[in-house]
């Protein structure tokens, strides 16, 4: 991967590597300077090897999760790159006629070819091969065995041009060349030969609009070189022979270029070569005109707005933003430059700009730009390989970002575990630390001891975590292979050095930072409390001396002066004094001192709560003002916490009631926060308007809900204890003692129990949401007609091919006994631009016009999300209205703006003044104008009355493999709009009986002459569902790693509990506990904490998925909320079993404690 979270991975690796190294070296420095502290810290590792191993395993989990997400991303990138290299071979750039983009098929002539070759020779370096290509895609049949392929690619090469593109080898290793092909002979690549089951000597027949063409297979080629085609079924022919056979004399589709450096290394020259060629082929006058059109203040303003990073530009990708910046730079220069010409001759970047300029609502400008686009240059130069590799990178980094996003819960949980481990370590050494402080150790000595000990854990855990991360990613990759792997696309495990560095460094930084913060907290102990094992509550907090705080602030501003003053009194060597003085000028240190002193001045105020309330009000206000849901939610949460803190502060003076008040306030805080975050997404819309949110709200919401629930429960543990006592007292009087202690210990250790419960709750929360929502996708399997329109088979024909009467043809060819057809419907798509005539702000935008025949209107079963009741009250009546009145039409559902914060933004034609949340029958028929999408030169504008919006589920099959919004209307539009009837190219078949899966290959075989390419719609839905299911498994496997963290926490807690309670175990044995009862008690403790976390996680997960379901079900009718109890039970069972397994050893150890041994110690 090259980028992650929009940052170059190389920079991330360098950045994190350098930061980790600096931290490492700093600690080496500290360890050398404070060798005694290092020794005290380090000796703890061999003291208890089991504990050390457990700590390292616990600490490594965050690193493992980071490593796993990077590894999966690397693998995806690598696998797609492999496909690109396999498919393109040595081809780095492609040159094609500019007009082919506008007018369809266009060719390069022989004269132009020579011209191109001359330009390449004169204007470029590092090109080691130039070759013309003739290419057509045709249906093919192997006459030797009746196997057929609807889309066989035929490529004609000229042997004299093949230098630089690699050699050709037969499967047996024999080198061959194009010139060895005789008339009507060809080579096949491996995938083509396999599809046709062809071998040397077989006779192949190709069907074109002109007739049939027979060729003989001369040999089967090994993949690579010119035989690179990846998954394409490729036949290689002698160019001249092919041009003669298919009437393509003096016609070439494209010219391909190979750069020096081989298949992978040539890319580095691609940018320069492409730029030089674009300049050479560009038309200076048109480019100038283009520049003048773009050189305006309003365009500069628009582009400046687009490059801002804010929620409005959420849909602007990093790559798009870079393109806008490039345009902006060039336009601001005020005069045309080579860079500008290069930019506008990149069709992708040019169309991106035009699509953004549509926002200016200046249709004249758009028309002019589109018109000029045709004449910008004679030929278009495409960086084929670089573009494809960038796509691979985008997919790879997208996968890592997705996994990283959901893995962030596990990473948070991992950090909590590190914190928990450090807190428990300190608890076990509290007396020791108190004694150390009593005999003269300073606070920073304790920080040093813990940090240096933690440093050793961090190094080991990062190292092991990285290795585990690689292993886990490779395991997950196997799941990915099931999800997206196919014969044509294989997932091959891969891990880059960059990812290894990022994993190790980020793991170490994360661990060390948590260790340092924990050490800082741990060191803040009261000596008496530590030695005597009292509670902190019994210690009066120190008095606030305002004068000192302000004095510290002034000193912090003049930090080097303060250091100088202190050093004068110091007995350190001159060298050390100078070093310390130099360091005091170091900005981060200086700023940190200022920040610390300011915080110290205001810290008593934070405890009064009102600053939080003010902060919350400001955040909420801005949230509403900027339509930012995240700010609003944070603001409200701060207000709730602020009010709670304020009430606590008021009552803090009255010790007798402050404890009760604390508990009540904490319960209200938890409850209110839980209600706020757990409310349906549109609860506050009446007051705030519709607020925008990004993916961060999912993480924030999850953490907030879990934290507030745990806060609520841990402040009301008496209720839990009462419930347990009530249940166990009634049912198991004998075991009540065991239950009582099993529950009492965890609920008394609120901090560590709360932390562990949160870990489980966060992970289970994510998994439950995933499980419930993946169940919702099954609506396609339950109601397939809503996706397929009731058609069992959908097929398409290549341009120029017709199929006649399908039923008759089947009968004529004698297949009527095998294929029993009920209905055959047809359609054709015409790319168009459309505008909502009822909305004055609406501009012409992309909308595909789907023209359907009468049978389609008569027979399809697609449904509607919204409709005008004047035209019918059910789908059939509405379709009938469309059939009876050719002026009517319906729109696809993606004309509505997407409310999905996770999904990509909707592009193309949009209905702006009608909400998808409106009632189904609230749609009012409206006029939509449309015209061809190339230019408006001919001024054809047609209108149709839209009477309904299709069900969102119809999108997959409704749009004939197309994408973006579309409009369906009857075939009468052809004459009005196009002035003629055009052939249908998509066929829908509804079967009377028979299995579509078996009928599809028969149909393809019968209509191979027409190049019919068919799919079994139900089969496709099932395959998609299966792929979705595999993705879910991958996702669950990845998120499930977090459960390991929770389970590790249970292990750590259990081990610690046994150590802490040895004497109590002895006492319990003395008063009659059997060893089994002791073991059961510890296991019950583990179960209790786990189940509490699971219970919170399941509850919040179901609540959130219910909210998500409600939000989706407004748009998708027929969805039912089903709680997958079986899956959830399995999840719960696995979690509890793993927790039990982890707690088993410590529990057994506790049971084996010999009472006399532990009681004697006193």
């Amino acid at each position, binding site marked *: 991967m090259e980028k992650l979270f929009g940052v170059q991975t190389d920079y991330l690796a360098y950045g994190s590597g350098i930061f980790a190294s600096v931290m490492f070296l700093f600690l080496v420095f500290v360890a050398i300077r404070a060798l005694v502290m290092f020794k005290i810290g380090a000796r703890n590792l061999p003291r208890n090897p089991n504990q050390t191993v457990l700590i390292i395993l616990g600490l490594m989990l965050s690193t493992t999760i980071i490593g796993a997400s990077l590894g999966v991303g690397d693998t995806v990138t690598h696998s797609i790159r492999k496909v690109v290299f396999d498919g393109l071979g040595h081809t780095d750039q492609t040159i094609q006629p500019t007009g082919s983009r506008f007018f369809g098929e266009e060719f390069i002539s022989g004269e132009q070819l020579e011209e191109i070759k001359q330009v390449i020779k004169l204007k470029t370096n590092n090109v080691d091969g130039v070759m013309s290509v003739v290419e057509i895609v045709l249906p093919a049949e192997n006459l030797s065995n009746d196997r057929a392929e609807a889309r066989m690619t035929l490529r004609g090469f000229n042997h004299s041009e093949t230098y630089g593109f690699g050699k050709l080898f037969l499967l047996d290793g024999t080198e061959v060349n194009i010139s060895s092909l005789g008339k009507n002979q060809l080579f096949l690549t491996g995938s083509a030969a396999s599809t046709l089951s062809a071998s040397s000597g077989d006779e192949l027949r190709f069907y074109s609009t002109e007739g049939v063409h027979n060729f003989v297979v001369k040999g089967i080629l090994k993949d690579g070189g010119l035989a690179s085609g990846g998954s394409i079924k490729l036949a290689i022919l002698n160019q001249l022979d092919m041009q003669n056979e298919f009437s393509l004399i003096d016609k070439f589709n494209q010219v391909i270029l190979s750069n020096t450096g081989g298949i992978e290394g040539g890319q580095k020259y691609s940018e320069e070569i492409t730029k030089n060629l674009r300049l050479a082929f560009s038309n200076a006058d048109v480019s100038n005109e283009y520049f003048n059109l773009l050189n305006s203040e309003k365009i500069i303003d628009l582009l400046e707005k687009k490059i801002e990073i804010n929620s409005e530009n959420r849909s602007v990708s990093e790559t798009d933003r870079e393109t806008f910046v490039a345009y902006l730079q060039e336009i601001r220069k005020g005069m045309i430059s080579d860079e500008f010409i290069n930019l506008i001759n990149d069709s992708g970047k040019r169309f991106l700009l035009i699509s953004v300029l549509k926002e200016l609502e200046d249709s004249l400008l758009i028309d002019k730009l589109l018109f000029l686009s045709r004449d910008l240059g004679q030929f278009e130069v495409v960086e084929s390989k670089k573009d494809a590799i960038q796509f691979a990178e985008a997919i790879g980094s997208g996968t890592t970002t997705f996994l990283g996003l959901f893995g962030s819960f596990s990473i948070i949980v991992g950090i909590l575990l590190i914190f928990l481990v450090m807190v428990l370590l300190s608890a076990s050494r509290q007396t020791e630390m108190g004694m150390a402080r009593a005999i003269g150790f300073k606070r920073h000595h304790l920080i040093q001891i813990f940090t240096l000990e933690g440093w050793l854990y961090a190094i080991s855990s990062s190292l092991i975590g990285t290795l585990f991360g690689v292993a886990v990613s490779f395991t997950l990759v196997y799941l990915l292979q099931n999800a997206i792997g196919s014969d044509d696309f294989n997932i091959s495990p891969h891990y880059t050095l960059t990812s290894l560095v990022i994993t190790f460094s980020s793991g170490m930084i994360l661990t060390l930072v948590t260790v340092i913060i924990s050490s800082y907290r741990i060191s803040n102990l009261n000596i008496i409390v530590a030695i005597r094992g009292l509670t902190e509550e019994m210690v009066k907090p120190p008095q606030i001396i305002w004068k000192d705080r302000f004095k510290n602030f002034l000193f912090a501003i003049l930090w080097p002066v303060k250091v100088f003053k202190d050093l004068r009194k110091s007995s350190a060597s001159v060298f050390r004094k100078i070093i310390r003085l130099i360091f005091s000028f170091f900005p981060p240190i200086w700023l940190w001192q200022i920040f610390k002193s300011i915080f110290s001045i205001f810290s008593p105020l934070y405890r009064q709560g009102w600053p939080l309330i003010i902060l919350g009000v400001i955040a909420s206000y801005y949230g509403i003002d900027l339509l930012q849901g995240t700010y609003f939610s944070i603001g409200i949460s701060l207000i709730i916490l602020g009010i709670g803190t304020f009430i606590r502060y008021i009552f803090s003076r009255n010790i007798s009631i402050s404890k009760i008040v604390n508990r009540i306030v904490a319960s209200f805080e938890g409850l209110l926060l839980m209600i706020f975050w757990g409310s349906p997404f549109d609860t506050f819309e009446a007051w705030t308007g519709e607020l925008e949110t990004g993916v961060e709200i999912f993480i924030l919401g999850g953490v907030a809900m879990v934290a507030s629930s745990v806060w609520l429960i841990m402040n009301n543990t008496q209720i839990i204890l009462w419930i347990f006592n009530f249940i166990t007292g009634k049912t198991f009087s004998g075991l009540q003692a065991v239950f009582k202690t099993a529950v009492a210990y965890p609920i008394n250790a609120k901090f560590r129990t709360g932390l562990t419960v949160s870990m489980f709750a966060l992970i289970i929360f994510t998994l439950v949401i995933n499980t419930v929502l993946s169940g919702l996708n099954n609506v396609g399997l339950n109601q397939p007609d809503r996706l397929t329109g009731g058609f069992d088979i959908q097929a398409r024909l290549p341009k120029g091919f017709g199929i006649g009467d399908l039923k008759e043809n089947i009968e004529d060819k004698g297949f009527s006994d095998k294929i029993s057809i009920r209905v055959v419907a047809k359609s054709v798509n015409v790319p168009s631009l459309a505008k909502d005539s009822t909305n004055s702000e609406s501009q012409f935008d992309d909308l595909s016009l789907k023209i359907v025949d009468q049978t389609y209107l008569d027979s399809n079963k697609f449904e509607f999300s919204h409709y005008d009741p004047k035209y019918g009250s059910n789908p059939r009546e509405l379709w009938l209205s469309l059939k009876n009145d050719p002026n009517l039409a319906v729109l696809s559902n993606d004309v509505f703006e997407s409310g999905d914060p996770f999904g990509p933004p909707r592009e193309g034609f949009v209905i702006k003044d009608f909400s998808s949340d409106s009632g189904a029958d609230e749609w009012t028929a409206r006029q939509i104008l449309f015209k061809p999408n190339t230019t408006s030169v001919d001024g054809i504008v047609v209108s149709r009355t839209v009477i309904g919006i299709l069900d969102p589920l119809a999108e997959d099959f409704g749009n004939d493999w197309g994408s973006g919004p579309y409009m369906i209307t009857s075939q009468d539009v052809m004459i009005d709009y196009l002035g003629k009837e055009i052939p249908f190219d998509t066929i829908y078949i509804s079967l009377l009986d028979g299995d579509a899966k078996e009928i599809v290959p028969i149909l393809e075989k019968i209509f191979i002459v027409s190049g019919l390419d068919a799919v079994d719609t139900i089969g496709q839905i099932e395959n998609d569902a299966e792929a979705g299911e595999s993705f879910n498994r991958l996702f669950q496997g990845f998120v499930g790693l977090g459960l390991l963290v929770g389970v590790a926490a249970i292990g750590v807690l259990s081990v610690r509990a046994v150590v802490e309670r040895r004497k109590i175990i002895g006492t319990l044995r003395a008063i009659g506990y059997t060893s089994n009862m002791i073991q059961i008690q510890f296991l019950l403790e583990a179960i209790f904490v786990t189940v509490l976390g699971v219970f919170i996680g399941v509850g919040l997960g179901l609540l959130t998925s219910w909210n998500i379901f409600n939000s989706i079900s407004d748009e998708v009718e027929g969805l039912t909320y089903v709680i997958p109890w079986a899956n959830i039970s399995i999840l719960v069972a696995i979690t509890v079993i793993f927790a039990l397994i982890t707690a088993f050893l410590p529990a057994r150890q506790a049971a084996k404690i010999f009472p*006399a041994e532990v*009681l*004697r110690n006193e």
Partner: protein
Amino acid sequence: MTKEIIVETKGLHKIYGSESLRVHALKGIDLEIKTGEMVAVMGPSGCGKTTLLNCLSGLDSINEGDVIIDNRPISSLNDNQMSEFRAKFMGFIFQTYNLLSVLTAQENVEMPLLVSGVKSSLAAEMAKNQLQEVGLLDWIDHKPDQLSGGQRQRVAIARALVNKPAIIWADEPTGNLDSSNEKEIMDLMARLNSEHNQTVVLVTHSDLVASYAHRIITMNDGVIVSSENIKK
């Protein structure tokens, strides 16, 4: 009236450690303790007092000889039977109280009852009564860290007595208390001993504590060097 022997041991040996580090803690102890008797075991540190107490109560194993309690040789009991026997027949008092810090005074006292299978409502009632008897009725809902040392030891005594055990084993019961608390606790134990006729075996260094006993056994180097009845 002749009192019955409730604890009896003959030739009791206890050895700790392996070959190289053998500690012969008890060297052939012969002892008889009668029902209702309060016996104080005294002697210098390391002489084997606590070991004797642990062996007699079945908390520790023995290498040779046997301990017979209420005519039952405890070596014949397995771990579960021994636990049940302790729950119903014995009560323990420790120097550091060893109360469960997460439970209230009442819940601490309820524990031996619940372990013995007493219903929770009855156990609560009995615990409350026992705490009343040791003068802590107003403190039943307090947790150990909210009580003074003397109060904690009273809770520990209540816990030891609540099951009405035949024998109370007390290891330095006042070792952590000041002299006024020490006297208070010993007055309480003496009163309960006389009222309920329970056998009390206590290990102590304190002459004051020993003065409450009917008999003082003095140990040295793993053997009983004297057994002296005290005339009250």
